[in-house]
């Protein structure tokens, strides 16, 4: 067993555990913390795939900025434990076997058809310079459109989150 495979399995175990914990926890802050663990472990997987820059951005943007926003909103709204839901018996009877069958089928197909092919680790260094070359030449138009998207998102967030009476006063 190669060292990379051991690292892959370790980070993958953290990912799987965090994702299952996100579903199992009832309090949103616990779910948020397990999601941060998933994202940090995913950054490790990106490093194994040779995508250093993506790994750094994953930690800074996802595990940093976006999750801080989530935790901030959870604390701002003082979100408590979520209430028990009445589970539908038909959903459990049909859903659980369906999910198990589907996942086994997908796993079998994926392992069968791409089992011999391999990812060469370190063969594709994700240097920021190469990525910048792509981003600012080949994908220049999407990049510029993205800036408009972010501008609209900022304005939308400010308008939506501001107090209703403050917005009404501005309209008047």
């Amino acid at each position, binding site marked *: 067993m*190669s060292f990379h495979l051991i690292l892959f399995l370790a980070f993958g175990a953290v990912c799987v555990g965090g994702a299952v914990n996100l579903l199992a926890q009832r309090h949103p802050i616990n779910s948020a913390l397990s999601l941060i663990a998933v994202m940090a472990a995913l950054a490790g997987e990106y490093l194994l795939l040779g995508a250093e820059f993506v790994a750094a951005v994953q930690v800074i943007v996802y595990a940093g900025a976006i999750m801080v926003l989530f935790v901030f909103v959870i604390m701002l709204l003082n979100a408590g434990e979520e209430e028990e839901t009445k589970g539908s018996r038909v959903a459990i009877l049909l859903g659980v076997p369906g*999910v198990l069958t589907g996942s086994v089928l997908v796993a079998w197909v994926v392992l069968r058809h791409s089992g011999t092919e391999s990812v060469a680790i370190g063969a594709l260094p994700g240097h920021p310079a190469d*990525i910048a070359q792509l981003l600012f030449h080949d994908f220049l138009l999407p990049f510029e459109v993205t800036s408009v998207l972010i501008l609209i998102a900022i304005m939308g967030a400010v308008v939506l989150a501001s107090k209703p009476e403050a917005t009404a006063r501005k309209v008047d």
Partner: protein
Amino acid sequence: MVPSYVPLSYYLLLSGFLFACGVVGFLIKRNIITIFMSIELMLNGVNLSFVAFAAHWHALAGQVFVFFVMVVAAAEAAVGLAIIIAVYRTRETLNVDQVNLLKL
């Protein structure tokens, strides 16, 4: 650098598992914030398969796509959380079962 190998299928299975966990969380969770976090989990699962395929096909464009997904996720999180704050302000609840009308 000594090349060592992890099969592409392992990355795809992990990515599929994360996406499936996101779908299940989206369906079974009742707290609107946790539902939102499940969507982020789905996006992360897709990002992992983008990076794995980028490494597999030696196409750096896959990593650029991940940045676009991250940008959309950030914009979506900002607007979505603002909507959650607005919903909480008018309904005083985060339970999606009690948010079943567009009209107050």
